């Protein structure tokens, strides 16, 4: 019964979060099995009939379905807040140590129950804790699911005889996915899904720290500001045209309290196609100005990461240690970007 309910919820999430290609990709791994059909009328049939049948007949393990969900909800379409810590704490933050701090001596038993798919109404709970990648064995991710009922405008309005206007709001269940990702050797990423309300983002960010608190405290970390990174990315753009380009910059003249920005009109524009803009940004930086935001497009590559183009906003004017990832992406592609940020943070310009 429990297994059946988990499967129902997992499939419903797959339908909502994953693309048809991702589902077909999973089914293709068992192509030839009599219980696996790949073609379907639409995505609904693909998930509700083909994938369900493949899992129920045990042709595909449910863990593989969880894997699909993980890929889709853990990486991208989120704010990432970067933190760094000292060597001593970094060395201590092993998977086992963190698990023991959170769940106590019987942590093995608690962790073995993950991943958990179900939500706790109007609350938060840890839904997964696992090593993040075989490539980097010291890395881990702790995932939190939350659920909150919010009121959303339905779009319907009504006008009274006295001219008063009534706008209808309907309750909506907001599914919240938050995570903390230890990216060894020294980076902690607090990941919070995108939302139109900055207040909610701040609340969720605090929630992650609160759930990490048995194992670590925020004041043990220092925000990893991307000021130098953004500066180097902008100044070295001409030498890295095959790696990235950028579309928008937010600029700051701290000494004089002046903010400015350049934005390409098209959402697919490239700011550095204009020599005038390029020279202006460079001159501004060389004469003591800084960047507080930079919208970077990381160009896809056929044989290595990033496999797909990735759009990121580095810095959000207020928070220089924050990155916004526009769409969903793979874990590897997102790690590629973080490793590039590390490289550009070191490079001299």
């Amino acid at each position, binding site marked *: 019964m429990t297994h059946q309910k988990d499967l129902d919820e997992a499939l419903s999430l797959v339908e909502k979060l994953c693309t048809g290609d991702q589902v077909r990709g999973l089914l293709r791994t068992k192509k030839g099995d009599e219980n696996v059909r790949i073609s379907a009328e639409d995505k609904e049939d693909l998930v509700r009939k083909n994938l369900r049948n493949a899992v129920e007949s045990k042709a595909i393990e449910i863990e593989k379905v969880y894997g699909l969900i993980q890929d889709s909800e853990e990486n991208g379409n989120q704010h990432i807040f970067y933190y760094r810590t000292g060597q001593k704490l970094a060395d201590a933050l092993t998977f086992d140590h963190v698990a023991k701090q959170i769940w106590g001596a019987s942590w093995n038993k608690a962790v073995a129950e993950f991943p958990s798919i179900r939500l706790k109404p109007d609350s938060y709970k840890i839904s997964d804790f696992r090593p993040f990648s075989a490539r980097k064995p010291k890395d881990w991710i702790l995932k939190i699911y939350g659920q909150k009922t919010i009121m959303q405008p339905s779009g319907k309005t009504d006008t009274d005889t006295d001219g008063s206007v009534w706008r209808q709001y309907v309750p909506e269940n907001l599914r919240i996915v938050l995570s903390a990702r230890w990216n060894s050797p020294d980076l902690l990423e607090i990941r919070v899904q995108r939302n139109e*309300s900055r207040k909610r983002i701040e609340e969720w960010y605090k929630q992650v720290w609160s759930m990490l608190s048995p194992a670590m405290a925020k004041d043990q970390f220092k925000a990893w500001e991307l000021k130098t990174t953004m500066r180097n990315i902008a100044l070295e753009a001409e030498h890295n045209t095959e790696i990235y380009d950028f579309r*928008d910059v937010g600029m700051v003249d701290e000494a004089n309290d002046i903010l400015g*920005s350049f934005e390409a*009109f*098209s*959402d*697919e524009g490239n700011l550095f196609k204009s020599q005038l803009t390029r020279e202006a940004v460079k001159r501004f930086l060389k004469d003591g100005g800084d960047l507080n935001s930079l919208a970077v497009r990381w160009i896809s590559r056929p044989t290595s990461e990033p496999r797909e183009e990735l759009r990121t*906003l580095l810095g959000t004017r207020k928070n220089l240690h924050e990155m916004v990832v*526009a769409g969903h992406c793979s874990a590897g592609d997102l790690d590629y970007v973080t490793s590039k940020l590390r490289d550009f943070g070191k490079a001299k310009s």
Partner: protein
Amino acid sequence: MSRVSFEILAKQNPKYRRALHALEAWINAHPEDAVLNPLKLRRDIRNVDPAELAVALTILVRAGLLRRVYKVLTPSGVLADAEFDDPSAIPEKLPDRFERYFETSDADVVPIFRRTA
């Protein structure tokens, strides 16, 4: 993106031959642009009447070579990232380029054309 030829469509729509050929030349000169913005086209293609250009774009949409989508201008006057097939699907709030959300009810909605091949 690959080079295009609108000669067949120009033969079928002789009144808009000049506009179709101008669009063909523009697309072939901008192979990396997956999107055609009418405002930019009007600026770049000055020797064709804007009304004829608009009809030529519609001919390309009907031929399945372009898809009409709608975008919203941010308060700073640039295109927001989100794209909609139907303007009625635009949500009340959208993020601008710096992830600040703005009310779309006061914002301009612009049609643009996305290449399908």
